[in-house]
């Protein structure tokens, strides 16, 4: 199982600078980052090599941070890969709440990170259909 940290940030200059500075000082590596914003604030989701540690340092700095499980699915970096994941989930009635992806090795390997309502069910559906799911360590070894 992979973990993602979510951080609350006001929508103003310097917020991402501050968060990434804290992570850099702790030598925490960022694999992927996504930001969604609403009315004057946003939530930054970050995939890092040491989520537990990142969670703790941000919390001790007083930054509202949340650690949660997500599903990281390995895909081939080629047309139609993402569709095949989405199709399996759709056929099994799994609703995707949030998703983002990144390429590990161009033309070869990519990872899709998804958040769904029923995590264990989505996991077993994907595994049953032959998809490889990554743990925190594997995201970095891959």
């Amino acid at each position, binding site marked *: 199982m992979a973990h993602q940290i979510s951080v609350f940030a*006001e929508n103003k200059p310097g917020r991402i600078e501050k968060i990434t500075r804290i992570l850099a000082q702790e030598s925490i590596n960022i694999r992927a980052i996504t930001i969604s914003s609403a009315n004057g604030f946003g*939530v930054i989701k970050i995939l890092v090599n040491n989520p537990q540690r990142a969670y703790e340092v941000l919390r001790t700095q007083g930054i*509202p941070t949340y650690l949660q499980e997500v599903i990281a699915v390995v895909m081939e970096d080629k047309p139609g890969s993402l569709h095949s994941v989405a199709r399996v989930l759709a056929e099994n009635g799994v609703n995707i709440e949030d998703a983002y992806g990144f390429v590990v090795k161009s033309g070869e390997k990519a990872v899709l990170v998804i958040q769904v309502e029923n995590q264990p069910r989505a996991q077993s559906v994907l595994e049953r259909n032959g998809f490889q799911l990554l743990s925190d360590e594997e995201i970095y070894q891959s």
Partner: protein
Amino acid sequence: MPQEELARLQEERLRHTISQALKTPFYRQRFAQLKVDPGKIKTVKDLQRLPFTTKEDLRQGFPFDFLAVPLEEVVRLHSSSGTTGTPTVIYHTAQDLERWTNQVARCLYMVGVRKTDIFQNMMSYGLFTGGLGMHYGAERLGAMTIPIGTGNSKRQIWFLQFFKTTVVHILPSYALLLAQLIKSEGLDPKRDLNLHIMLIGAEPHSEETRKRIEEAFGAKAYNSYGLSEMNGPGVAFECPYQNGMHLWEDYYILEVVDPKTGEPCREGEVGEIVLTTIYRDATPILRYRTRDLASFTAEPCPCGRTHRRISRIQGRSDDMFIFRGVNIFPIQIEKVLMNIPEVGNNYRIVLAREDYRDIMRIEVEIKSELFFGDLQKLERLQERIQAELRSEILVTPEVILVEPGTLPTQEGKAQRVFDHRQM
């Protein structure tokens, strides 16, 4: 004391106070102008025929127009900060201070402070009455008193821990800040401290704020009302039932009036508190407009005390602001915010004028523990705060969610309203 006896005592003391007032240049002149025979003012009803005394009167009477005794009889003066003009000065004889001390001791005893208590007084000492007033009352009871004063939170925490302080006197806004600071030192204010009584005052605050303070410290918090013109802390105080503050009617005559017309309010109706000192010789003040808004009740209190109770202060007639034609008191906003669990303890009300339109922006700190990484939940929280505020103040403010600890904090009285509108 039965109410009839209290009323008799009030009239006896009122007559003495009128005779003291006649020794002051201000009231001598006023009685002469009004062509009122001071000898005829014997009852509370008679008193109501006299005009009010205002803060402005006290200022114009600076320095000695309200002094009723020879200066050599005076042993102390207290003064308002004077930040908005000439200061107001209140003089005390030795006997006045003695009476005030007993008055404060009565308040403290009422909420359970005893000789065995350790009392840390976190209010400012000096011209401000909060520090010294409570200090002498606590000493009178025999409690060990730590005159630490305001600020320097690290030192406050050290004393709280080292001396196992049981009672504190503290500003409500500072109590909430201090709880955070104690936690950030890795301590639990409930487990690692020995507090059981907190005296909170000098700032109007809501019931919701009191609950947060009590929860944070695991102690009882009692509301204290006072103002320097009427001695200082101890004018009215909550009893253990925490349902209104007993106003000591053997020290003051209480009236609640409509701030616009000056007409008396009915029981339960919110108006301006007007007080007459009846147990002070050096500076007698008749019918003082406190600018504090509250209601009174004459309902018997389960504690058995017959002194009537006033509600918590609903605001000051001068801290009200007008937004798009609606009168709003900051305490109304505080009440709504402190009742929402996801909202942190610090907030700010910013008024601005943008494109010829008035904007009210409420900046609210969110609570870290209640953040679950969910954007939609935050949006819903924002909408909920906005809707609850609208139903309280009847206008729609902008609500800005901010990170905890980013709004400026103060160790002194908290400033909540920032009005940047150019009038």
